[in-house]
């Protein structure tokens, strides 16, 4: 690294072709000599290569976990759609039942109609339970989506999921609770 005495830095380029090494006098107050630079004296600095490698590998692992979460989110979304579809199409034999025909329900939404009328799906699952399951999956999907968006927009890094949890907590949402509920459905 070149070091120049400050008192020699008294000329500056006056034309574009002036290739002088000397900094212009206007910049003198900003000059920092080599001896004024304070180098760190920490193990991280002494082993900066190894530290950087370690951090890079940790981020890679975190990134892999992140991708797994992303796939889970996508799977949850598919499951929500499939659940809704299943609820709508359950017991197709009942679709054209006389009761439904008599009450004027649309024959294109037989499952929904049955659920609306009886509060029970054909296999005996209560509508509250089914909707609760869908809600659990949808909630997890939304939280995953929020986390993805925060990382995608550069607001947070992939290894900063605890900040997402803090944000959610401020809205009285317990991310762990949502996660457990969605896994229970799966």
């Amino acid at each position, binding site marked *: 690294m070149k070091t120049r005495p400050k008192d020699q830095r008294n000329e500056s*380029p006056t034309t574009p072709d002036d*290739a002088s090494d000397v900094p212009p006098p206007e910049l003198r107050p900003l000059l920092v000599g080599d001896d004024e630079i304070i180098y*760190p004296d920490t193990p991280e600095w002494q082993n900066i290569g190894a530290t950087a*490698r370690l951090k890079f590998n940790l981020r890679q692992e975190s990134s892999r976990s992140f991708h797994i979460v992303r796939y889970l989110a996508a799977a949850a979304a598919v499951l929500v759609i499939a659940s809704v579809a299943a609820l709508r199409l359950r017991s197709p034999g009942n679709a054209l039942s006389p009761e439904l025909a008599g009450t004027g329900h649309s024959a294109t939404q037989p499952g929904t109609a049955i659920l609306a009328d009886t509060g029970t799906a054909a296999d005996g699952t209560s509508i509250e339970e089914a909707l609760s399951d869908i809600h659990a999956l949808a909630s997890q999907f939304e939280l995953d989506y929020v986390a993805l968006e925060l990382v995608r927009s550069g607001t947070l890094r992939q290894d900063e999921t605890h900040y997402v949890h803090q944000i959610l907590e401020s809205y009285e949402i317990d991310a762990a609770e949502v996660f457990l509920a969605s896994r229970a459905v799966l």
Partner: protein
Amino acid sequence: MSSDLDIARERELIRRIQAGDDTAFDEIAENTKRAAYAVAFRWTRDQHLAFDTVQEAYIKLYGAIPSWRRSSRIQTWLYRVVTNACIDLHRKRRREVTVSSGTSHAGEWHECLLDSEPSASEKVELSDTLAALQGCLESLPTRMRQAIHLRYLCGLSLREVSDVQDCSIGTIKATLFQALRRLRTQMIKLEECPS
């Protein structure tokens, strides 16, 4: 300012890293870290910020080396990454300071610059000069600031600055010329109308 590695050695180390030898990366880091840190420290005037910036640069470098096909030197690449990070950091801090306290970043910035000044009266005088100078520098376009910083405050050669900015030496000369002209014009304006 340059790396302690010659080109042949650097290429050999890159090949070794690409073959899975991590100790070669450590050797590159050991030979380039002081120069990279000096650039970061001269920009941030803060030991911790400078270290964080340099460490981030090495993390990026480790990720970039497996597919390294660049003709530029690693030290040059580090200068570019470090100065870009410093510029981003500076912007971010300025936004934070403006939002949180409504004060100008120049104030905070020149407080750091004054750390080594002994006399109170000199401090006041230099404080004004530094604040004005820093304000003028900050108003320059990013490439001009980067060129001035690397060339005059960090002592890089025109060739090195042109490599960092990926342009010709002629362009760097013109950039420096324009930057200094703008800087002087602004300083004159400030002297004429300090408020």
